[in-house]
């Protein structure tokens, strides 16, 4: 075990809070980030599912996209040039999952887009944020102004998240899953979305940098709320069956390969009013109908040994050529067993299919399973 620190790592506005709370800091996407605190990943994970976890995700990229015309629809239509998503149909105060695609139909990044009335609020992955900004500017500067928001982002997730946040900002209680609102918290102008990446009910709160410490500290005064690091965020994400960019998603993986066709609304598909018009649409849209050759699937390894990302997948114990690869894998604290996701031929992606993964030179039996591993607990709007 060796530890290296480098002064070139960036710090989030909550760096001092992490250090004060005994975080183990690790380099992540150019930032010095907390991977865990004293209780450790296992307890932080379980605390989030039982109560509420607070995670600093300020390393992620935040942007405001405004149309030069001042009309939100123009910004929405412009963004639709880069994503296979119905942005125009996103109501004010609502958020949606989106993907930047490339000309080959692969995924450049996954992101969240919210309609805040006069602009679109966009959150992207930390490791991709410079590339995403350049991509947005290059493609949309004719119609839009892109503002990089130098703000903190705090994820508050778990069954007690609503009560904890409502203590500081009562209107958060009225929000439903994927709602997005500009709300004052302790007098600071915040953007609150009722969403997250854990499968739990909860919020992601964009706050001014200089108020991040106050707001995080106020949330942590609630005994239900505990700090969780990126380690727990990742195990929560995996149990929720969600994709990690750079692991489950990459420029050679199409949305159909990644089993993310649900993210592409009918209006952008063949026969839709705004079908296509995004990079790789000539690859992705036919694939939605015909299927791809490979697809993301969930795996339950037999026994207790975790099967990690990078493990090759075989269709028998003695097969010599791999049929797939594990893209995310580890131990699921809430399901108390190893869990994994990976990519396999469509013919082998049916739940119940018996497969094998190579772990340190041995073939470990595992079974394909439907995702997610833990059922989501979102507070959805009533369906009408």
């Amino acid at each position, binding site marked *: *075990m060796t530890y290296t620190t480098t002064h070139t790592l960036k710090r989030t506005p909550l760096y001092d809070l992490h250090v004060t709370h005994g975080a*183990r800091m690790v380099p992540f996407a150019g930032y010095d980030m907390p*991977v*865990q605190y004293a209780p*450790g*990943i*296992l*307890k932080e*994970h379980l605390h989030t599912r039982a109560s509420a976890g607070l995670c600093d995700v300020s390393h992620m990229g935040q942007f405001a996209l405004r149309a030069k015309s001042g009309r939100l629809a123009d910004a929405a239509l412009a963004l639709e040039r880069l994503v296979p998503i119905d942005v125009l149909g996103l109501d004010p105060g609502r958020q949606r999952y989106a993907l930047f695609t490339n000309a080959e139909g692969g995924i450049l990044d996954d992101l969240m887009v919210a309609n805040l009335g006069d602009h679109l609020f966009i959150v992207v992955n930390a490791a991709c944020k410079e590339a995403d900004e350049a991509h947005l500017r290059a493609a949309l500067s004719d119609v839009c102004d892109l503002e990089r928001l130098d703000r903190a982002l705090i994820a508050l997730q778990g069954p007690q998240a609503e009560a904890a946040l409502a203590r500081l900002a009562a209107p958060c209680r009225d929000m439903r899953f994927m709602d997005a609102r500009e709300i004052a918290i302790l007098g600071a102008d915040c953007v609150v979305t009722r969403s997250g990446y854990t499968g739990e009910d909860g919020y992601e709160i964009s706050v001014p940098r200089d108020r991040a410490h106050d707001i995080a500290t106020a949330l942590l005064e609630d005994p239900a709320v505990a700090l969780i690091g990126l*380690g727990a965020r*990742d*195990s929560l994400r995996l149990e929720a069956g969600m994709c990690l960019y750079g692991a489950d998603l990459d420029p050679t993986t199409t949305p159909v390969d990644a089993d993310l066709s649900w993210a592409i609304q009918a209006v952008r598909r063949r026969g839709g009013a705004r079908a296509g018009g995004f990079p790789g649409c000539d690859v992705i849209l036919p694939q939605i109908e015909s299927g791809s050759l490979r697809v993301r699937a969930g795996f339950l390894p037999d026994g*207790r*040994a*975790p099967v*990690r990302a990078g493990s090759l997948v075989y269709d028998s114990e003695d097969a010599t050529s791999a049929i797939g690869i594990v893209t995310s894998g*580890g*131990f699921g*604290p809430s399901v108390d067993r*190893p869990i994994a996701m990976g990519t396999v031929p469509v013919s082998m992606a049916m739940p119940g299919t018996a497969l094998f993964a190579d772990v*340190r030179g041995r073939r470990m039996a595992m079974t394909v399973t439907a995702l997610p591993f833990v059922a989501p607990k979102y507070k959805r709007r009533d369906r009408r």
Partner: protein
Amino acid sequence: MKFTDEHEWLVRDGDVATVGITEHATVQLGDLVFVELPKVGTALQKSNPAAVVESVKAASDVFAPLDGEVVEINDAVVADPSLVNSDPLGKGWLYKMKLKSPADFDSLMDADAYKLLIG
């Protein structure tokens, strides 16, 4: 008790050494969820992987501190890896090995040298 710079500890009884990982190592690794031990009879070579301990996040090798042969393993930590976290120097021992040259034991770090290493 002796230590290695890979954060293993060992205690000798005649030509048999009991091997485990240090408290410092368990703190760095976090809660263990899986332990894989060598089979009894396995020939171990100093500094080669002998066992694997896995946390939620990652798998880590445990290296053989000296040359020898595995004579006993701790099935209790396989059944309950959290023993390694709760009692790393006691109930959380990993395996016992018959040392090829027991005299080499004395060349390993003592507790003071190890404390200096981990700061």
